[in-house]
């Protein structure tokens, strides 16, 4: 029995700490995995409806892809500023980290503003949860639920970033705190990569 235990520990090469990470980071990764599964379920349901549909609207007729590309640019750029904030904090450059966190929060707010404009534009054209003027009725439901659920995550991210910025300015935020905010923000960017491709392009 003891022999088996030793082999098991060797295989994971971490002993009592198999992930070699603090509890905050491990918990944040578990959250990301579970939240990622929620989005995977959403996207799988969308895939089902999409394959089943006979008249799914042509995305290029409904959306301005240049506008969606601009939203993507904003989100990717905010991810780069967030990564820079985490790096600056790891090097002990608190002022620089604060500057990058603020840039990231601004990116998030711009993204939300652009999404609000996109929603109001499509609602103005007749898009609703249960009907739309372009084709398959479920198109509106998937559009509002997928982008809305993602937008809620962006909004949550902005709140986390603003709170992190305030804590940084007051000299209260730790390296771990900025890193966790960063992990969450990159996850939001990661999910957008899937929504952008599967919903807007395919």
């Amino acid at each position, binding site marked *: 029995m003891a022999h088996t235990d030793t082999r098991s520990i060797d295989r*994971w*090469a*971490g002993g009592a700490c*198999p*992930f*070699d*990470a603090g509890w905050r980071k*491990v918990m944040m*990764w578990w959250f*990301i*995995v579970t939240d*990622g*599964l929620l989005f*995977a*379920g959403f*996207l*799988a349901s969308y*895939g*089902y*409806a999409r*394959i*089943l549909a*006979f008249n799914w609207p042509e995305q*290029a007729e409904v959306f301005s*892809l240049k506008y969606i*590309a601009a939203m*993507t*640019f904003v989100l*990717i*750029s905010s*991810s*780069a500023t*967030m*990564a*820079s904030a985490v*790096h*600056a904090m790891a090097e002990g450059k608190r002022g620089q980290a604060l500057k990058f966190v603020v840039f990231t929060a601004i990116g998030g707010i711009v993204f939300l503003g652009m999404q609000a404009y996109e929603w109001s534009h499509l609602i103005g054209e007749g898009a609703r949860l249960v009907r739309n003027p372009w084709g398959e009725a479920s198109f509106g439901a998937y559009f509002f639920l997928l982008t809305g659920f993602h937008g809620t995550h962006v909004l949550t991210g902005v709140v986390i970033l603003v709170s992190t910025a305030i804590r940084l300015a007051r000299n209260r935020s730790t390296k771990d705190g900025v890193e966790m905010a*960063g*992990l969450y923000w*990159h*996850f939001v*960017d*990661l999910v957008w*990569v*899937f929504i*952008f*491709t*599967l919903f807007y*392009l*395919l």
Partner: protein
Amino acid sequence: MRGYWITWGVLLVFTAVMLWADAAPIPRLAFVVFMVAAMLTKASIIGANFMHLRAERAGIVLTVVVGLLVTAVVLYVLIVPDAARIHEMVSRYGPR
């Protein structure tokens, strides 16, 4: 820090190429395969470089990546044939 901005540039190039492909006259199957490959590559770049998975212990990387990928693949493998079957039945016999 320079590495993050290189990653940013690479992600933007991928996005631009995907938008170009969207407007290009590519056969549907090749288009779908290309888009899914580009999407997974972008996601891997974000995970590895921005989320620092590249620097994490293998245990955490495998748990996160394999857990998410396997579940997503299982979801699609279970769902796609059923949706395709119903689509074909409706095409053949008409709606209920």
